């Protein structure tokens, strides 16, 4: 039995920031970098991933007692692939424009390490409400991080946000941000920024601790 567990809200909240899939765990990079050259794409991809993650976690968690260990990964993949295909079909039917933009990347949600990772590490060991809360948190955190990346790349690379021009006509866009290197660089500098924040906080804590003992 797991130790007396945290409230459901905490399971949800940890994915948003403390264990954010992209900024902290650096998981699920392929879609994160490939589709974030505009905010709309990033948001759509984030929501699609979130949906697949929550549905898969729900099923894996409810079936966790029936899935024998040796075939668990294959079963998880079948479950995930089913939801990805469903998402793909539904998007194509309802929002064909978004589907055209994301086309090649929707199927790759299947191999997003984040989703399989959550099934193996969490959903297969926890009751349904907890698993769904965790998945929703991770999914929303993923979508949030994707949207951040998309916003940085679109604002710097095209001078627009959600397609609306932000700067005057004299703005020279940093085209590189829209290209593949821009994906690596924006995430690199974001991680750098978080590292710096963390270091500053650690230093402050250390200083505070010294102050108390002195």
């Amino acid at each position, binding site marked *: 039995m797991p130790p007396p567990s945290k409230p459901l809200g905490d399971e949800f909240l940890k994915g948003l920031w403390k264990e954010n899939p992209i900024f902290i765990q*650096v998981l699920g*990079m*392929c879609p*994160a*970098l*490939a589709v974030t050259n505009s905010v709309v794409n990033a948001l759509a991809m984030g929501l699609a991933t979130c949906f697949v993650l929550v549905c898969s976690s729900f099923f894996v968690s409810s079936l966790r007692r029936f899935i024998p260990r040796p075939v668990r*990964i*294959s079963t998880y*993949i*079948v479950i995930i*692939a*089913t939801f*990805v*295909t469903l998402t*793909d*079909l539904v998007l194509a039917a309802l929002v064909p424009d978004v589907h055209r933009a994301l086309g*090649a990347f929707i*199927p*790759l949600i*299947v*191999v*997003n*390490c984040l989703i*399989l990772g959550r099934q193996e590490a969490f959903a297969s060991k926890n009751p349904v409400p907890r698993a769904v809360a965790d998945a929703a948190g991770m999914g929303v955190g993923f979508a949030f991080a994707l949207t951040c990346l998309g916003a940085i790349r679109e604002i710097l690379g095209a001078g627009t946000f959600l397609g609306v021009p932000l700067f005057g006509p004299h703005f020279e866009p940093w085209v*590189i941000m829209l*290209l*593949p*290197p*821009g*994906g*690596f*660089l924006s*995430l*690199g*500098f974001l*991680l*750098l920024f978080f*590292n*710096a924040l963390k*270091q500053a906080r650690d230093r402050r804590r250390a200083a505070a601790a010294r102050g108390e003992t002195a």
Partner: protein
Amino acid sequence: MGDLIWIFVAAMLVNNFTLAYFLGLCPFLGVSGRLDTALRLGLANIFVMVITSSCAWLLNTFVLPHAPYLRLIAFIIVVASTVQFVEMVIRKMSPALFRALGIFLPLITTNCAILGLALFQTNRGYDFLEGLVFALGAGGGLTLALVVMAGLREETRVLDIPKVVQGMALYMILAGILSMAFMGFAGLFSSGGS
């Protein structure tokens, strides 16, 4: 013939799977700490890619025309079971090869580059031979990226790098610069493309 060479070069350099399509980033960022490991992982990838490409072609030609909406699930099941099967065969046939590639094979199943290969091959309508050449090119490109990255990371170990930059942030920025360098290969397209 010219087309085949073109597919190979495009897949390996111009549209490098890792640096232009962001596929196979997990091993790229996670495992490529040592040069020889990176090389062997790359070779294992080429191996699986070639097999996957043939399987994808078989599925696309004989099975999926009847049920295209099952493509994704068929691909992923075939990739997973092929990798396991190949692992068993190698273990029986060539213990040396197994020691070289073996531990990486299960890792490869969940590598998006493999599924990406099968999907791209389908989208572009490659025939059997084109698919094989595409797989070789893509695998070669992946290996190249892994090896270059591993070399750079071995170097960074002996350098005095500020603590803030160390870790994932550094690798991302390195990857960004590599990716920029690989963009230069796009020039091959505009000059010789037509």
